[in-house]
């Protein structure tokens, strides 16, 4: 697998902690011995807007952004954003996404509609996809704030990275007092 570049596109809403999640993911991949690049945009985009982070890994990675239509995995933190970025996913790609819905301003104002049945539409187009009730699992882990760790756990199933590397990255990145609940959240996500 090492000579082939793998592409993971993280999408969600500003403020959801996507940049930190992609940070942990990149660290895991570096610890796994890969060349890693990640790209994102700060500033204007953070104010509740749509957020995208590209993570690429392999033996040698050139472009920090994923070539259009070549994402292997779409890693979604919010349902509508996952749906929005499906065009960037490969034909045989897969989605791992939270079922969380955050209402955009046009919908909040009653002027636009939040699309219906997104999970079914995603699964119809990309059968190997997983939509996770991450909030419920985070609650089960003991803290709503571990929701992104649950999602990382679910993502880890789709990647050829050792459990040790994940464990190491969690130890490196998560403050000690939150480590236990995050390790639990990761395990719950991995089983989901």
């Amino acid at each position, binding site marked *: 697998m090492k000579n082939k570049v793998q592409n993971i596109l993280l999408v969600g*809403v*500003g403020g959801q902690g996507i940049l930190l999640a992609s*940070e942990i993911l*990149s*660290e895991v991949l*570096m610890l796994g011995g890969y*060349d*890693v*690049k*990640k*790209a*994102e*945009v*700060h*500033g*204007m*985009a*953070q*104010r*509740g*807007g*749509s957020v995208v982070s590209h993570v690429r890994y392999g033996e040698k*990675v*050139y*472009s*920090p*952004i994923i*070539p*259009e*239509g*070549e994402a292997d995995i779409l890693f979604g933190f919010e349902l*509508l*954003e996952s*749906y*929005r970025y*499906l*065009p*960037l*996913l*490969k*034909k045989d*790609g897969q989605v791992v996404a939270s079922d969380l819905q955050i*209402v*955009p*301003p*046009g*919908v*909040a*104002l*009653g002027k*636009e*509609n*939040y*699309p219906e049945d997104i999970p079914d*539409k995603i699964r119809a*187009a*990309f059968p190997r996809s997983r939509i996770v009730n991450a909030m419920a699992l985070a609650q089960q882990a003991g803290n709503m704030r571990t929701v992104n760790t649950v999602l990382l756990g679910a993502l880890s199933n789709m990647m050829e990275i050792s459990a040790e590397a994940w464990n190491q990255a969690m130890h490196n990145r998560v403050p000690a007092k939150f480590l236990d609940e995050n390790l639990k959240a990761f395990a719950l996500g991995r089983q989901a």
Partner: protein
Amino acid sequence: MDKTILSGNEAFARGAFEAGVKVASAYPGTPSTEILENIAHHYPSIDSSWAPNEKVSLEVAIGACFGGARALCTMKHVGVNVAADPLFTLSYTGVRGGLVLIVADDPELHSSQNEQDSRHYARFAKVPMFEPSDSEEARAFTRLAFEASEQFDTPVMVRSTTRISHSKSIVYPQAPVENLPAPSLVRDPAKLVMLPGNARKRHYFVEERLANMAEWSCSQSFNRIEEGRGDVGVITAGVAYQYAKEVLPEAHVLKLGLVHPLPKQLIREFAARCKTLYVIEELDPFIEEQVRAMGIEVHGKDLLSVCGELTPGRVAAGLFKQEIPEGFTPTETLPQRPPNMCPGCPHRGVFYELNRLKAYVTGDIGCYTLGFMPPLSAMDTCVCMGASIGNATGISKVLPPEEQKKVVAVIGDSTFLHTGINGLIDMVYNGSTATLIILDNSTTGMTGRQDHPGTGYSLKGDPSYQVDLEGLCRSVGVKHVYTIDPYGLEETRELIKREMERPEVSVIITRRACMLHKRDLIQRKPPLFVDADKCTACKACLKLGCPAIKWNPTAGTKGQAEIDKLICVGCEVCMQVCKFGAFGVCDEK
């Protein structure tokens, strides 16, 4: 040291540290901001500071370099417009200690008001410019730039772009240089006092310097040829190099690390072996036009757009005339998710009232530029940092008296101290009739909450003198200066209305800290709720555009407003908008 994964901005900071930089100064600007933040956080031995604007930051760096120390200045592309004055003459004086200016361009305008290509500044000011292609080069080229600065007696620019500054890749940190000469006072007026007699001579030096660097750069490893197969060649630099390698993996590549001056001899040798030659570069045909002027036939902007950033797909689409691949596409129109002011943002109420007062608002650069977005829709112009005030003065000059009253300039506290104060001096001096609102949220919000001279803290977090905005406005001759809490809607509206009527300059300072303020000046209050029995579905609260207020079309008989308690911070602005008393405060646990 071991390898590590760093953003371009983290790597620039590392490179500056390794180069033995003593002084670093900047004004925040996306995508350059994190360079100085990283220096302040990770390399405390460097004297790092926020200047009120880019011109001052460059002047501080110049002073440090004249004292014999290595000095760094960083800014976003449009910052160079502000700093251009010292830059162009610094090119003539040259340096004592090395001086490097890192400038971060923003192709695609992810967070900017234009898409200018800073490479023209290098050529215009006759200074060399390096352009890294990833984080490791960001580190290495910054270090190299300091060496070149001292070797050739020149300031050196390093160009970044959003995709370099905000991308992470693997970096191999090196030990910092040692034994740099100690700073000292040296008088050298023929070099440092740029009066015509001295500057005339220095201009000859500048031209010779550029010619020398062009020759030198032909044999340096940062300009390298990567052998491919076949007869297709690519000349490229910066992040475009990465896209070229994705799209044309077989091609011969001349990768330029120094984009000004160009290594002409090397380019000639490279071109001679290629049947088809592409220049792949972002924004303007900067390299392409110079290569063509050498009499070499190339393809570039005939195939790739001058506008926007490149991507692997866009490069392939241009070169091979193929469609950008798209996978599954949703059939329905998806709701957009534009950026928005945060729940509890102190700017929201001000723009809500400006909209109701039908003011003509000259705007400025910051989070509050989002006051343009519906439903607030209360901004009519936005040009550059500080422009709101001069724009208001100018437009007032040409309007009939009744319309003059509608003109209100809005500017943030950080932007006011950046270049707004000059406009206010002009307002008073030349008898403007417009009203100025300083939206004082006690931080530089949009770039990620940096301190400035009005916050009372330095970049490193040390307490500092806090500029007295009211006193400053009065000192330039403003007779009517008022301060108000923008959470009080009625008072804010009445004050703005009264001052709009006044045929004289007045300044209203709306003061309340940013909701995301780092030093937690905000006391978060319990969230609100909507009383379903009282909500009449009038939708008045929706006109605030608060992310915490949602419309539930299926509640009640006509739909109802609801509050997202997870994000509501209890500012109670919506409560003041509701005529039916439908908003209540949740019980605190």
